[in-house]
């Protein structure tokens, strides 16, 4: 690891995200003054262009296949449609208004409208930046896209397509953008020093908690708890998990905002945590349920990737093993949570993203090591960081849960959340889209 590399990341992150300690911010300012004029670093820019494409791939085909395989055969198209429509819808929302609400100067809670329609977002890097602001905007946009797509798993197999669209647009503007501002856009959580390298709170807790709200409000699927509602195509799900794993290198290592040491750390911790969580889930399942399952391996991989996300650039590879294993173990039991909560969270968004994201955010406060680029955590003599992480988790949960309830109620009043019982039994592919995935004879 080159000592200078993490500093490059600091410079970019300090300016864009303002989540660093005052000392690091001071260092970045010094570094910025030392430069004659800001210029595009082609290496950094090439990596963030690549990372942006990798994260886009996570939503479709990655998440689309992961979720598509988990539903029954008469709902697979509806889930693929919701994922691809998240890409299309949020892409537009983000460039028009989402980005400025997240990253405009604004106040501690939300950005302003100074960059509405990407006004003033150009290609010349600002002071201390090494990539075009336009590229940073697009990289962040890919996170805005995948986050509401994650929620799809909670209301799968019964939500009206029109309700999904309205909810997604509202959620993206009124929940994702402010939360992103809190953590990365100069808002209060970032100012307090909450560590979130690539979106443990912003992406995973937010989607997991909103998923719980959605599953509770829309109600259980017909037959839930009485008849099997098994996955219809696990090869899809495994292919999706593989694409997510690969795409996550863009998600996490790209969050270093440069081709540097911090990106390398995040790359290694991401892969290591995913591996540790996969092994943990499979072996715990084998021991407690009698068989190691393929779905268990795929679910464990995603649980580990979720868990390491907030910590990726702040912890050692050995800590990543602990964070990944903890993620695999907690999510394995976390998917039972829905039964206790009485929520038919169809594809386990709460159990994996909610639980894994919460564990990851807290674990970041435990395992963070300043030598890797952030601040020290509990294990390195700074218990205060864990408390800041707890604040971040709780604030995110309360905001996203209440916010999602309000938006879902509003959507329900506008178009109704749920398809008819008849439509649900027939399957959303036919009722909502007049299409079938697998020919006319089932």
């Amino acid at each position, binding site marked *: 690891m080159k000592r200078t590399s993490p500093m490059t990341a600091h410079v970019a992150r300090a300016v864009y995200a303002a989540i660093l300690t005052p000392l690091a911010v001071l260092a970045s300012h010094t570094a910025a003054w030392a430069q004659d004029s800001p210029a595009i670093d082609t290496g950094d820019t090439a990596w963030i262009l690549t990372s942006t494409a990798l994260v886009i791939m996570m939503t479709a085909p990655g998440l689309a296949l992961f979720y598509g395989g988990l539903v029954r055969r008469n709902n697979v198209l509806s889930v693929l449609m919701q994922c691809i429509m998240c890409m299309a819808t949020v892409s537009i929302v983000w460039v028009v208004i989402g980005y400025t609400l997240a990253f405009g100067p604004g106040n501690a809670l939300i950005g302003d409208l100074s960059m509405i329609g990407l006004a003033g977002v150009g290609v010349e890097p600002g002071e201390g930046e090494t990539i075009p602001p336009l590229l940073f905007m697009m990289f962040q946009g890919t996170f805005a896209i995948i986050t509401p797509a994650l929620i799809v798993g909670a209301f799968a197999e019964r939500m009206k397509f029109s309700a999904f669209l309205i909810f997604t647009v509202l959620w993206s503007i009124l929940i994702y953008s402010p939360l992103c501002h809190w953590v990365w856009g100069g808002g209060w959580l970032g100012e307090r020093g909450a560590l979130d390298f690539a979106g443990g709170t912003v992406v995973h807790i937010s989607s997991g908690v909103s998923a719980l709200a959605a599953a509770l409000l829309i109600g259980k699927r017909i037959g839930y708890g009485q008849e099997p509602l098994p996955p219809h195509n696990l090869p899809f799900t495994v292919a999706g998990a593989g694409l997510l794993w690969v795409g996550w290198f863009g998600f996490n290592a790209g969050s270093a905002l440069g081709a540097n040491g911090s990106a390398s750390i995040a790359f290694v911790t991401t892969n290591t945590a995913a591996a540790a969580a996969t092994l943990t889930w499979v072996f715990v399942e084998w021991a407690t349920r009698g068989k190691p*399952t393929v779905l*268990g391996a795929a679910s464990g991989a995603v649980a580990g990737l979720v868990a390491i996300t907030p910590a990726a650039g702040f912890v050692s590879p050995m800590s990543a093993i602990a964070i990944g294993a903890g993620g695999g173990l907690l999510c394995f039991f976390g998917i039972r949570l829905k039964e206790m909560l009485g929520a038919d969270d169809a594809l*386990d968004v709460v159990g994996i993203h909610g639980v894994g994201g919460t564990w990851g955010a807290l674990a970041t406060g435990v395992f963070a090591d300043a030598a890797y680029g952030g601040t020290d955590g509990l294990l390195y003599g700074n218990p205060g960081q864990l408390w800041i992480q707890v604040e971040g988790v709780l604030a995110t949960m309360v905001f996203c849960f209440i916010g999602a309830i309000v938006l879902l109620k509003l959507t329900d009043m506008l178009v109704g959340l749920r398809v008819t019982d008849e439509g649900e039994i027939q399957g959303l592919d036919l009722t909502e889209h007049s299409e079938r995935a697998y020919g006319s004879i089932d």
Partner: protein
Amino acid sequence: MKKVEAIIKPFKLDEVKESLSAVGSSGLTVSEVKGFGRQKGHTELYRGAEYVVDFLPKVKLEIIVSDDNVAQVVETIEKAAKTGRIGDGKIFVLPVDEVVRIRTGERGDEAL
């Protein structure tokens, strides 16, 4: 003419087909089916939720034969499909009133 309908274990299909070819059987139709008899289903496990699956996959053969060949065809299938374990399947013999070869218009045994 008779219709011989056999429900067999899927992995026995090739063996049955080859044995039937060896005794000169001229054609058959197969389909993938599901069902249950004495053989119990199995348990499937998805994210910790266990599902008991009652319907097991089987292969159904349908062969139309002349009355003279019924005994031989039934015996051939019986031998080739047998493993001796529960779930080997069943063979049904049904009467067939008429057979038409669509291309030529032949009727009865001529059309087999």
